[in-house]
């Protein structure tokens, strides 16, 4: 076990978990020792479609996209693989009777692969024989399109244990739309995995180990007096946490054995949360467990540092930013949220606290004008219905800019002979196809070389193949070892991207 690990742990004890991350001496010690780099998956989720004119009119020219709607990604053209003419098969199956399923179903499919409806197998069949006065029965029958476990959670189950957080999901204002549809996109065994929506709470959870007591970054601390042997008090802390969690595991197992079938997946999700807590116990590395903050499996990058602590949680009153400029129009300022989450997500990856991240902006049902600073007075959901209207394009382009800023950070972070981006798969998708409020054809894009597995700087005409194939390719490159994503009948096999 390296000396540095013990030093890092001691700092953890003294200053809280976040402190060591700001201490450059250990970053350099560890980064010098690194010879391989973690492979990461980043999912970028755009609500409401990618406004472009699909098709093959421009052949294989990437410029079609990067001189157009993908202009914010211009610096990343050589790092991209653009998949055009993707079929989001959920589009054939989205039920028509009750509202709002299209966004949620489409999104779940784009990130998990299409499956047949459990109950009826298609919109027409679903609508047939449904009691229109019983929405609950209807939902029970037709909801659930999209695989039960999306790609992030499937991979979290395989590689997530190597880091303190199996996966992290961030959503700028995703839960503030009041549209009644948050377009939950990510699922674990049928249970929605919802993004963190409060930047300060996200910061606290990830970098504060639940113990922040004030604002600002902890000051660097001298390493001169750090002990080089395990601290008994810290060992006790670990054992206290471990024994507590062991009891909770036993309780969940006992309850699960007598709970109804429908409830067991809830308890599994709870168990996942507890196991993540175990992964963040301070002495896990020393105890030979999976890598955590300073543990043997951890691979923090050379720029690993605390992101800026968000100024505050969400505003508490409806127009609290009144008078502060163009964001007067709405109280929740998407620019601030996006910037904070970009930083937090970036350092979560760079510090190897997780290798799976999902970033989302708004939800597709958002009913408030978030983009007045762009001159857009409409709400996002209204824009989505506007069939490539000017405001819609402006808003989506702005979100692309936020995505590009994030991906550019990865590209600008050296890692071996390349960059973090070279050792990542950034998968960009939207639930609403090409921006006409329909699900197919869809455009999805990968940035990054996946550690050398992907050849980038090209366009792939998917020719109507289902999104399941792209997801299968990504998942297996990440190490899932799956044969299908979603229902087998919607799989045509993995794509060759090398």
């Amino acid at each position, binding site marked *: 076990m390296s000396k540095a690990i013990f030093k890092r742990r001691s700092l953890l004890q003294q200053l809280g978990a976040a402190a060591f991350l700001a201490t450059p001496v250990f970053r350099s010690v560890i980064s010098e020792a690194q010879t391989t780099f973690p492979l990461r998956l980043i999912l970028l989720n755009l609500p409401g479609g990618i406004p472009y004119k699909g098709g093959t009119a421009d052949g294989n020219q990437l410029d079609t996209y990067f001189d157009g709607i993908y202009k914010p990604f211009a610096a990343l053209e050589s790092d991209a693989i653009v998949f055009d003419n993707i079929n989001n098969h959920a*589009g054939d199956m989205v039920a*028509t*009777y*009750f*509202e*709002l399923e299209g966004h949620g179903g489409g999104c779940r499919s784009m990130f998990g692969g299409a499956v047949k409806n459990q109950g009826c197998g298609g919109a027409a069949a679903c609508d047939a024989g449904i009691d*229109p006065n019983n929405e*609950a029965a209807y939902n*029970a029958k037709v909801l659930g399109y999209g695989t039960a476990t999306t790609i992030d959670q499937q991979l979290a189950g395989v590689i997530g244990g190597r880091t303190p957080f199996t996966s992290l999901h961030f959503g700028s204002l995703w*839960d503030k739309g009041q549209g*009644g549809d948050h377009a939950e996109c990510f699922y674990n065994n049928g*249970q*929605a*995995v*919802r993004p*963190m929506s*409060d930047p*300060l709470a996200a910061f606290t*959870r990830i970098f504060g180990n*639940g*113990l922040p007591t004030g604002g600002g970054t902890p000051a660097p601390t001298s390493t001169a007096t750090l002990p080089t042997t395990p601290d008994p008090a810290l060992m*006790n802390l670990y*054992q*206290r946490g471990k*024994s*507590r969690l062991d*009891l*909770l595991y036993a309780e969940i197992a006992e*309850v699960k054995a*007598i*709970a*109804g079938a429908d*409830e067991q997946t*809830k*308890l599994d999700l*709870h168990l996942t*949360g*507890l196991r*993540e*807590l175990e992964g963040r116990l301070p002495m896990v590395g020393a105890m030979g467990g999976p890598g955590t903050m300073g543990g043997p499996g951890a691979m923090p990058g050379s720029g690993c540092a605390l992101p800026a602590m968000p100024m505050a949680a969400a505003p*508490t*009153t*409806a*127009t609290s930013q*009144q008078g502060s400029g163009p964001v*007067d*129009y*709405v109280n*929740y300022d998407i620019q601030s949220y996006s910037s904070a989450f970009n930083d937090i997500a970036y350092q979560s990856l760079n510090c190897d606290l997780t290798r799976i991240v999902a970033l989302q902006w708004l939800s597709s049902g958002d*009913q*408030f*004008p978030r983009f007045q600073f762009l001159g857009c007075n409409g*709400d996002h959901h*209204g*824009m989505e*219905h*506007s*069939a490539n*209207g000017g405001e819609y394009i402006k808003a989506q382009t702005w979100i692309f800019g936020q995505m590009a800023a994030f991906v550019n950070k990865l590209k600008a972070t050296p890692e071996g002979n390349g960059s973090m981006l070279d050792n990542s798969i950034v998968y960009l998708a939207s639930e609403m196809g090409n921006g*006409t409020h329909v699900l197919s054809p869809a455009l999805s894009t990968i940035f990054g070389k996946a550690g050398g597995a992907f050849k980038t700087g090209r366009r792939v005409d998917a020719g109507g193949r289902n999104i399941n194939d792209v997801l299968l390719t990504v998942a297996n490159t990440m190490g899932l070892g799956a044969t299908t994503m979603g229902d087998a009948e919607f799989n045509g096999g993995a794509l060759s991207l090398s």
Partner: protein
Amino acid sequence: MKRLVGESILCLALFGAVGCSAEVTGAPRKAAPGSGIPGMPGAEPGSSGVPGTTPAMPGTPGSTTVLPPAPAGAVFGPSALRRLTNAQYRKSISQLLPTPAPTDALEQEPLSQTTRYQDNNSAALTVSSILASQYAGIADKVVKAYQVEPCVGASETACGDTFIQSFGKRAYRRPLSASESQRYQALFAGELARTGYTGAVTQIIETMLQSPNFLYRFELGDASQGAKRSLSAYEVASELSYLLTDSLPDAALFAAAEGGGLVTAAERETQARRLLTSEDAKPTLRHFLEMFVATSRLEDLPKAADIYPEYTPELNASMKLETQKFIDSVLWEGDATFNTLLTANYTFANSSLAALYGLPDPGQGSTLVKTPLNSDGQRLGILTQGSVLAQHSKAFESFPIARGKFVRIGLLCQPLPSPPKNLAVMPVAPDPSLTTRERFSAHSANPACSGCHTLIDPVGFGMENYDGIGKYRTTENGKPVDASGNFTSTLDIDGPFQGGPALATKIAGSLEGKQCLTLQAYRWAFGRDESSAERGVVNTIAQELAAGGLNIKDVTVAIAKSDNFVFRTFK
């Protein structure tokens, strides 16, 4: 320590139990309602904590009380695993421990897809990784602030066991099972050896506050009865307490559970009516009605500052408080009926709200006072309050579609078809030469849309006298506002109406409206969507209470009395 002698005597007098002398509770301590831990003020009878008297498995009936088996042939709703809502979690902790309710951030509850606004739907309430982390952080914080008093007069192991049994019973809302006791005893022993008595006690608390048995309410019932089960007496006690007070059963409910006092409908009614007289019932029922009119998250509602400059944070807060005070007034000072909720001719206003409503300034500055509404027919009841009208509007304009949908889905419980698949709908463009109604009328004339919008729009149009923050208007863009509305496809209120008060009066007088409030209460009570078979129960309750204007408190009592409250279908 300082109270040890007296409390030991009390403990022995009540229970005669070994280990009662353990003084493990913190100081300062408050006599939290329903606190029942031996050694704590307010200990309830029967909480002896003596091992060996506990049920074999969690969720099975404790003590001697077993409800009768489910009636043959009857169909009941499904058993659910009900995670505490954030409010319930916070309140339960404050009643378990001498600590204020935690205010730390908790992942917000998803809202029910069916009701659109209820936050206690058990299908959506899970313990995510985020929440597990937040629960852990709060538990850590709580025990760090907890002052453990030393164990005197008994071995530390005995003190620990007493604490495990007594605190566990409160936290789990039932006695611990034998296996649970053993696990906690082992946990205590391990921590005792490592860090000492204080660390061991706080370890118990910290663990129990993260236990599934604390975080979820179970409806497991008596497994020996098979698929159709009666709930255990302790489960019924929790159903009642969380339904009406959003928190743990109090001492009287515990006693009723142990003494066979929750078996009959009359016994449950007695308990329900008792709980309804408690202060804790007020925020609980208020929250239900805020969800009913969808104002429970009004603080998240932005408006366009350039269009509605008067919509300040203060006005937003006033709107929310107005509705809360109005609900309280109807429920606790008035006749508590659905009819009054919708048609009362008063509200609570301060200077800014009075200005918005065109009422005389009550003269109390920002303080809201009960204020009669004008007799000009502009407003009546909760539906014409700024909170409700602003909530069902866009940020920059009134939105008749949202208002119509709210009435159909929220107040009449009518599900609506979704837009046709693959339909690209152009948003209604602003036009300063037209009224909102004129713009939306043209929009909805599209044959592909009209199927739904003929149901929605004529209802929403009837509220066009109110702008996007609920200010009354008779003209818009220089043209007269047409607030004539029309109901079709209803049970008993088809026909035209004119304006918000007329709409409210129609719904207040309708059986369909009363059935809907009862159904929403039923969904809230059980934290799930209803099954088809349960609609009959709901409608029966509504029918029986309709003549009196549908007393909302009586609705909750009727639900508690129903067989559905105590029986479940287990899958």
